[in-house]
């Protein structure tokens, strides 16, 4: 598979603080690559280095074969960015905002006019194209930023929290648009806190913690990799066994209760299922729901970044 983004030993220090510490990974052509991490883990700093906003202290990265330090303009010619903290030009119209980005990327006049009309239609902004961006809601401004990014025909799209704080329609529209574009070959570098979104959209995810990559793989493999976070979920009709009885079943390492649903964490889910059924039989209890569950991406994330989360809370 062709590598579109190649990162080798990428490091960024701010004084004595090492924000990003010798990152090394690749992003393949045509994948949606999720970049996850707790606040302050180094996600935004990494994206800012890749998009030319800040210089790395050490290491290198290439985008479509162009080194971000030696050929910054060529590497930036292949990308479009929708930063989380960014905004559109409020005093320009919707159409002027799109044209500005297209012109800065050197998109020929005829092509940019046609493409802008198509994107305005696709993102539900056609009727508002003459309105000042100031009059748009947050969701519509985000759509406009995506429009302005896509009109440049990028090969790699950097999306930083694209659906954070948006209404359901805007979030769904943006997700659908990105997924459709990805099917047509667009590579997406997605930074998000939304684990469900990452799990559904991403081909692979990297979890960054304290400036270092804690794990990188497909969401499915990451879920399987932390077998200790597999669990058996059981729910009883009416009376349930004592908490201690369930906790002392062979193979159970930990137990959580949530609204009469028990989560029995185990590396041996098959054996625990058998033990739960045996216990229910012997006690004459009725089981309404019983299943072997793999950890969610959120479980993986929490497992790998628990130290940072505690630090943040302190």
């Amino acid at each position, binding site marked *: 598979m062709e590598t579109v983004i190649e990162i080798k030993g990428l490091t960024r220090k701010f004084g004595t603080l090492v924000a990003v510490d010798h990152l090394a990974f690749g992003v393949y052509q045509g994948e949606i690559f999720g970049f996850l991490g707790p606040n302050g883990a180094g996600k935004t700093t990494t994206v800012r280095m890749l998009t030319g906003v800040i210089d790395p202290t050490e290491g290198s990265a290439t985008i479509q074969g162009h080194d971000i330090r030696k050929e910054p303009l060529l590497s*930036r010619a292949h990308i479009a960015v929708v930063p989380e903290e960014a905004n559109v030009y409020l005093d320009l119209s919707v159409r002027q905002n799109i044209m500005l980005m297209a012109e800065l990327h050197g998109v020929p006049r005829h092509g940019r006019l046609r493409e802008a009309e198509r994107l305005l239609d696709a993102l539900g902004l056609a009727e508002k194209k003459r309105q000042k961006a100031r009059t748009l809601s947050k969701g519509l401004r985000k759509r406009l930023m995506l429009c302005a990014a896509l009109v440049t025909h990028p090969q790699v799209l950097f999306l930083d929290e694209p659906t954070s704080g948006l209404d359901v329609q805007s979030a769904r529209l943006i997700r659908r648009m990105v997924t459709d574009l990805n099917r047509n070959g667009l590579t997406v570098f997605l930074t998000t806190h939304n684990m469900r979104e990452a799990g559904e959209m991403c081909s692979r995810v990297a979890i960054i913690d304290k400036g270092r990559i804690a794990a990188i793989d497909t969401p499915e493999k990451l879920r399987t990799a932390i077998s200790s976070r597999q669990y058996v979920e059981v729910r009883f009709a009416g009376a349930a066994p004592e908490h201690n009885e369930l906790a002392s079943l062979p193979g159970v390492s930990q137990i959580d209760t949530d609204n009469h649903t028990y989560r029995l964490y185990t590396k041996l889910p098959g054996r625990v299922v058998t033990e739960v059924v045996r216990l229910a039989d012997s006690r004459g209890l009725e089981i309404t729901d019983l299943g072997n569950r793999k950890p969610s991406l959120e479980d993986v994330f929490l497992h790998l970044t628990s130290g940072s989360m505690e630090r943040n809370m302190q």
Partner: protein
Amino acid sequence: MTGQRKTAQAWRRQLHGSLVILKKNARLYYLKPPVLIFGVLFPVFFFLAFKMGRPIAAENVVPGMIAMALWFTASAVGPLVTPWERNARTYERLISTPVSLPAILAGDVMSGFIFGTCLSVIPVLLGLVLADVYVANVPLLIAGIVMGALSFASLGVFLAAPPTRGPSNIMLLSNLVRLPLLFVSGIFMPIGQMPVWARWIAPLSPLSYASDLIRGAFGRPAFFPVWLSLLMLVLFTLFFFLASCKFHNMWRAKGL
């Protein structure tokens, strides 16, 4: 493609980028209140405060008025653009486009240059119509206005380098620089008639050379030779632009 053609194409793209920035700035910033207040109202009030009730010959006033208007207008846009973009959170997307930072800054300089040269037509016309003066050397007047506007616009862009999200902080800084220089640059009286200490400081201000050229264009005696004034304005423009590139680059990610 040969190396030379590639280089020429890259330069063309960056020049195009600068022109796009110029168009954006003209649309967004020419009518912003700080530009109108510090770029248009300021010189008018300064002129009135200086002229009203004082028996000063028109031929002495008009060149100074033109130079002062040019000084304020050309240097008014630059200090506003970057802090405004940082504050409006549009700066990060701008610097991640394939337009280099020097090309973006060149676009900012062009914005100030065009704003300054266009508005300088007003005091020139007012001077010619309302006062009994004439332009003795038109090429010199054009050279003074063009080179002055370039160096003042570069100064404006240079002043916008400190990382802040508050445009008012930079406007304050720019006035701290612009106002004192106004009094030692031969605007209100010819440099030759200024006190000795002021004559020592005058060569450090680009306004001195621009006002001297404009004064010469109106047939008044110039303090510096024409070649020196032109050379110094070129050097000031280069210095401010290169310093802008260095400091804007150094601080580009701060305060995002």
